[in-house]
């Protein structure tokens, strides 16, 4: 069954069509990787799903409910968490305050959803540097440390659907691996569903179940990750490796 069904979705910025009749179905408990060149519309897709951008056409269904055009604020309570592109920390707040904001999302969620990151301590265990600096303002963090903060904050919301926009951006290879592992472990252990946007197609496909390739706002390929990884023609023409 698909948690998230995107049908015929079109999003425009003035004259620019960032998404053009996009259809994506995200299966429960799976990782769906959205790939594509720069400017393909990946970020726009995530932003439209979480309501930051209003689509011009199409529908988005979450758990059978139509959420098209619903306010972003309500998404957290529906079990969606979004890691935005480019380190969306609230720079003026402390690290702990950022995390506490993440926990608000969990407050209205059923407590029985399995989640490995439930408390601030869990988050600090995951990324110890955050614990060390918990009372520092987030703008003092390095680029990678901010990325960790954003990911931890999203997990604290105990989501059932996680939207990840380039989580590996600016992270050291070891941390990338750690995060990818963590995501996969979450999917396996607690039934989390993930919509993952990545530039690093190779790594993304290594943990994804399905790959969706966007080009100029259109879905050009929807295939299982295995097929995509193994089909050299597809890889070369769309993913450049």
């Amino acid at each position: 069954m698909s948690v998230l069904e995107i049908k015929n979705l079109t999003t425009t910025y003035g004259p620019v069509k960032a998404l053009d009749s996009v259809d994506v179905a995200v299966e429960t408990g799976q990782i769906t990787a959205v790939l594509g060149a720069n400017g393909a519309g990946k970020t726009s897709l995530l932003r439209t799903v979480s309501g930051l951008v209003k689509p011009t056409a199409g529908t988005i269904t979450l758990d059978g409910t139509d959420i098209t055009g619903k306010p972003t604020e309500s998404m957290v309570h529906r079990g969606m968490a979004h890691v935005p592109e480019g380190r969306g920390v609230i720079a003026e707040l402390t690290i702990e305050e950022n995390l506490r904001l993440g926990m608000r999302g969990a407050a209205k969620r059923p407590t029985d959803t399995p989640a490995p990151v439930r408390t601030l301590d869990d988050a600090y265990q995951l990324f110890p540097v955050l614990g060390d600096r918990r009372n520092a303002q987030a703008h003092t963090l390095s680029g990678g440390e901010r990325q960790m903060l954003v990911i931890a904050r999203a997990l604290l919301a105990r989501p059932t659907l996680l939207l990840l926009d380039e989580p590996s951006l600016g992270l050291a290879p070891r941390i990338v691996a750690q995060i990818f592992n963590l995501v996969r472990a979450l999917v396996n252990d607690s039934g989390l569903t993930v919509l993952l946007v990545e530039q690093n197609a190779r790594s993304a496909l290594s943990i994804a179940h399905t790959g969706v390739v966007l080009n100029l706002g259109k879905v050009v390929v929807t295939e299982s990750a295995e097929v995509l990884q193994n089909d050299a023609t597809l890889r070369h023409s769309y993913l450049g490796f």
Partner: protein
Amino acid sequence: MQHFINVLLNGITQGIVIAAFALALVLIFRSTRIVNFAQGSQAMFTTYIALTLMNNDFPYWVAFLGALAAGFIIGAVLERVVIRPLEGGMELNIVIATLGLYVAIQALAAILFGSDYKSFSSPVGVQGFQVGDLNLALTPTSIFVICTVGVVVVGLTLLFQKTQLGLTMRAAAFDGEVSRILGVRVSHLLTFGWALAGLVGSVAGILVATGSFIYPSYMESLIAFGFIAAVIGGLDSPIGAVVGGLILGIVNSLVSGYLAPGLVTIGAFVVLIAVLLLKPGGLFSSTQARRV
């Protein structure tokens, strides 16, 4: 000795009123990152509402609460009708819009309530205390004013530092988009921020008026001083606003009492520049953001 004490006391009472007004400016700044020039006009208008209530034989306290309610509502309405559509555009545009409101509301008050002086009585008396031979420039009204501002500051500080609501308000002000992703109802909070500022502004308006008299432009001098105090305090922190207000009030009083009353505004300028040269973000600003 008596003179010094009285100049100081006078500075404190003046300062605390400036602080009350600066608090309202800080609240707006926290929620919208702009300076609301209409704040003084809003406060003036709600004070007229209070006066109208009092003239219709409502007791002071009812009028006070009435003005607070009116301030709250006016703040919310202005945010929804004027400020909201401008958000996301240039900050200067909002500033100019608040300048427009400042002028328009003042004119409206003159039309509705007349432009003559009206006295605004105090619930607790305006005669100074006497301690032995010492005549203190302190009246029951001053004490009432100081206590009221104290309550407001403590309340606001608790709200912002200790409550979830305060945290989400700050988050909404700093980064609307990220806050929305985290489930914060940003638009409601911004309206609430303006409403709360309107309420605090009304408090300032009434406190200035209490035991004195009002006319449509009676808050005018407070706009500049309130703004300067807020900047001295760092624009971001309620405590900063109070400290800024007190510093300004005391400096003004000392300059007036020991140098020349004509130098008051220059004194204020010098204090502000001195503070900003030491700390370009004001006294209570957090450290400068990392740039790269």
